[in-house]
């Protein structure tokens, strides 16, 4: 049997959920028998591959790059799993919605800096901020939602096993918003 092609990515998140993923410890070895990680911060792939069976996405959508990325992911993946509160609710990333993009940029590039040579917001090399931070499911269809901040390793393990074995998992005992 060929291995399941899995990708992981973090968009606007803190990487905490990826840390949690690693916290599966020895169970990673068990999973490694079943999956191939074809794209991830853990591996050295530059381009998001085609033909992915499952993509695990951490983080919310905050920039035009995030938006482009999630659409590409949707196109190239059979299933998408939204991992953690940022991907599902916007969470911390979305707190800036309370003030607006303009105010956040002003704070970051003018109010709090010692100097800003150009006197402008950076427009090259960094992606453009969206007007609002949104969770993944407001941009594309999502197949699985596993909340948590960060999602506990046990929950990640149970869910991935469930997906691989094609059975439903009740995650309410394992995680919730904010856990």
């Amino acid at each position, binding site marked *: 049997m060929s291995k399941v092609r899995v990708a992981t990515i973090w968009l606007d998140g803190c990487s905490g959920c990826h840390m949690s993923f690693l916290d599966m410890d020895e169970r990673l070895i068990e999973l490694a028998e079943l999956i191939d990680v074809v794209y991830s911060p853990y591996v050295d792939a530059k381009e998001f591959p085609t033909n992915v069976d499952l993509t695990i996405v951490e983080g919310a959508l905050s920039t035009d790059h995030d938006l482009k990325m999630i659409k590409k992911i949707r196109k190239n993946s059979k299933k998408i799993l939204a991992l953690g*509160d940022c991907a*599902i609710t916007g969470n911390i990333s979305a707190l800036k919605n309370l003030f607006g993009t303009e105010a956040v940029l002003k704070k970051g590039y003018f109010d709090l800096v010692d100097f800003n040579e150009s006197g402008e917001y950076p427009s090259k090399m960094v992606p453009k901020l969206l007007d609002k931070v949104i969770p993944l499911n407001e941009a594309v269809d999502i197949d699985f939602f596993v909340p948590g901040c960060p999602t506990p390793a046990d929950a990640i393990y149970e869910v991935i096993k469930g997906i691989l074995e094609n059975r439903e998992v009740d995650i*309410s005992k394992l995680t919730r918003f904010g856990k």
Partner: protein
Amino acid sequence: MIKDKVRVKTFKIDDVAVTGRSDSTILEVAKEHGIHIPTLCYLEGLSCVGACRMCIVEIKGSSKLIPSCTAKIKEDMEVITNSSRLIKHRKMILSMIFAERTHTCSVCVSNGHCELQSQATDIGLEHSLVPYIHKGFDVDASHKEYVYDPNRCILCTRCVRVCSEVEGAHALDILGRGISAKIIHDMDEPWSTSESCTSCGKCVQVCPTGALFEKGASATEMVKKKSIVTNLIQARKNK
């Protein structure tokens, strides 16, 4: 006002035969019989406003959905509390509450002790079905002991009711309409300058979320003590 004589009525909730005093609500009788109906704005002893719509139920023979906290029982009625239609509605309603303001559990002092949060776990809502609105408000931390963060408020008005009905101060009320509606102190003044607030803290104890909380308490300490209020109400009733 007309007062009916109190009688006992027999009816069914989820096919279980139950009895209740004729002046009770469906929710009260369900609770007496250990049948769980989700609630948010309801608090035992306070007046019922039917605002959150989580406790809606169906009555056999009617297509209407009614809030069980305000609906009085009727002889021979057949109440359904958990049809797929009700669950669908509740999920959507709960989504709407989550989407309206900024309920960021991970940084909330009530994380782990929040009725909104546990409601999501109970009915299996792992993501909002509706887009986030994230309506923003200013936080009022002017009071020496308590903080009011409208961004975590679900407008259940328990605080308004407890202040008016139990404490008798009516320091709190609502300002504005629609999603701009907001709980205010006196005439929308900072909490610390409210002249009618007695600083009794009942509003904080009945708040289901982290919208009202004690200063200096950590997330593990900030457990709301609703029983302070419900016991007080009960004690007054028994007097």
